[in-house]
Structure formats: structure tokens, C-alpha cells
């Protein structure tokens, strides 16, 4: 995997957990992180569910280096449309992204590694023309833990 992505390579795999959205609705959260574009990109596929079968929000992101070596992120949100996000400076164990969506919203999304197998995911959206101090709504917050595939006992 190319260098700028290497600090996130340890996140490759399946993650699941619970969270809630701004109105307090509890959600189930699943995320799959995989290598993409011949190891030149990481794909983050996220789905949040209400109840057992209702997809509340789907987000699929491709994080990859530009030819100048800087990381950029493109993706699609079932709620906000196409998104183009830029990593914002943060700690080594944090992926923080922000940028516009074609639906007119400004999106911010972050993954914070809390422990080796625990990630905290947060997402927020506000109108792109919102005045300073605007209280963003529609936030999502979840705690994800690495999901190990089932293995036969003793293996």
C-alpha cells in the first residue's frame, strides 16, 4: 500500500457497533474497510440501520493520494449525494474529513481509534451557506468494534 495511506492500513477489515443519530434514534452500524485500486486507495463502506432491515444512511468513501501525494477522498452518501472530502490535520490515529456534497450540505466525518480494536465514528452535516455558529444537525455517533469472522471452535 502506498505511503500516505499506510497509517490507516491497520483498519482494514470489518467493523460493527451501535450508535445514535441526533434525535436519539439508536442505529446499528457496520463498516468495511478494504484496499482498493490495486492498493492505491482505501475504501470505507458504511451502513447504518434502524431496526433490522431499514437502511438509514449509506456512505461509501474512496481515500487515495493525488499525483502530488496529498490525500483526498471522494464518495457517495445516500442522504447527501456525491461528496468530495479533504483530510483535516489531526492526530496520527484519527481520520478527519470535511468537504461539500452535491446536495448542498457541508459534510464532516471522522474515525478515531480509541483502542486497538475500537473506532469511534462521528458524522455531521450543515448547509454550505450556513452562518458562523450554525448548530449542525443530523449528527451520527457510533462506537465500532472489529468483527472477526466466525471460526470453528478450536481452530
Amino acid at each position, binding site marked *: 500500500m502506498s505511503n500516505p495511506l499506510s497509517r490507516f492500513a491497520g483498519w482494514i477489515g470489518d467493523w460493527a457497533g451501535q450508535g445514535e443519530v441526533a434525535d436519539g434514534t439508536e442505529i446499528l452500524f457496520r463498516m468495511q474497510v478494504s484496499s482498493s485500486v490495486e492498493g492505491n486507495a482505501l475504501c470505507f463502506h458504511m451502513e447504518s440501520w434502524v431496526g433490522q432491515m431499514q437502511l438509514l444512511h449509506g456512505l461509501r468513501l474512496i481515500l487515495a493520494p493525488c*499525483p502530488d501525494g496529498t490525500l*483526498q477522498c471522494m464518495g457517495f452518501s445516500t442522504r447527501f449525494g456525491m461528496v468530495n472530502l479533504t483530510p483535516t490535520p489531526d492526530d496520527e490515529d484519527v481520520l478527519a474529513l470535511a468537504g461539500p456534497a452535491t446536495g448542498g450540505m457541508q459534510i464532516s466525518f471522522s474515525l478515531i481509534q480509541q483502542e486497538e480494536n475500537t473506532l469511534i465514528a462521528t458524522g455531521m452535516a450543515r448547509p454550505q451557506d450556513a452562518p458562523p455558529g450554525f448548530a449542525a444537525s443530523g449528527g451520527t455517533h457510533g462506537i465500532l468494534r472489529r468483527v472477526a469472522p466466525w471460526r470453528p471452535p478450536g481452530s
Partner: protein
Amino acid sequence: MAMTTPLVSRFQSMLGYWRGPNQLETGRHGLLEMHFHSHFEGELVQLDAYTWDTVTGETFSAGTGLFALKHDGRLIENLYVGRFGFCMLHETDDEPDVLALLGDLPGGRTMSVSLRLEDDELLLTSQLKAGVVGKDLPRTVARLKRYDRPPGEGA
């Protein structure tokens, strides 16, 4: 099988794997594999594309594109290609059986892509245009045959 949505209906005949000889705008020849797959109950279609050298097996071009529908019913594509980075393509008018997209690349260049299904062949053409100054690169043409892996075979 993907749920049929207005987006998936545009790509229904293309979903799956395709392979065929390809020549990049650099003149280098290779074998192109494309894979169309849908996500989020048919709200997103992703295209993964790789071109590799048929002698050495080396991949020398790889990219991925995310397709969705805008409110006006036209397609929009978020595209990443390792050789030139990120861009967003928008559907343009063309013949009814042609899917044509156009967008701006970094550095003032533009990229046009068209897809057309001709009997059992998928015809892909693309061109990089230099903008106001500079020379347009040759239009590339690839004719692809369906190459669907049997159910259960890994991708």
C-alpha cells in the same frame, strides 16, 4: 441481484465483469478489466477498472468511479484514477444508446468518457483534452467482452 432502481436500470446490461484489449492515451497496450457493481439498494453503481501488461502482468493503470443520479435524472460520476487523481464527470447529451460523461481534471484539462453496448460488446472510449493551451491526447477505444466469474468465485 441488485434492486432495480432508476440508476440500476441505466446500468443493468453492464453489471458484472468485462475484459478486452486496451490502449492508453500514452500508447501503451494492455488488457482492461472492468467491474460494475451496485450498492445501497441500487442507489450507487461503482466501476472498478484495471489495465495490465499482458506480458509482465504489471498493472499500469487503475481507477474507480462512483455513479449516481442527480435530481434532474442525469448521471454524475465521482472518479479516481491513480495517474491523474480525482475529478467529477457529468452526463452530457449524446445518442440514446450512448452514456457520455464530461468533466474537468486538475491542471485545466478535461476528460470525456463514453460507454455503448453493441450486441455483446461494451465499447469504452475516453479522451483527455489539454484545455486552452496544449495538445489533445488521442481518443482511446476499448472493446470489451463479458467475463462473468462463476458464482462463488472470488473477485
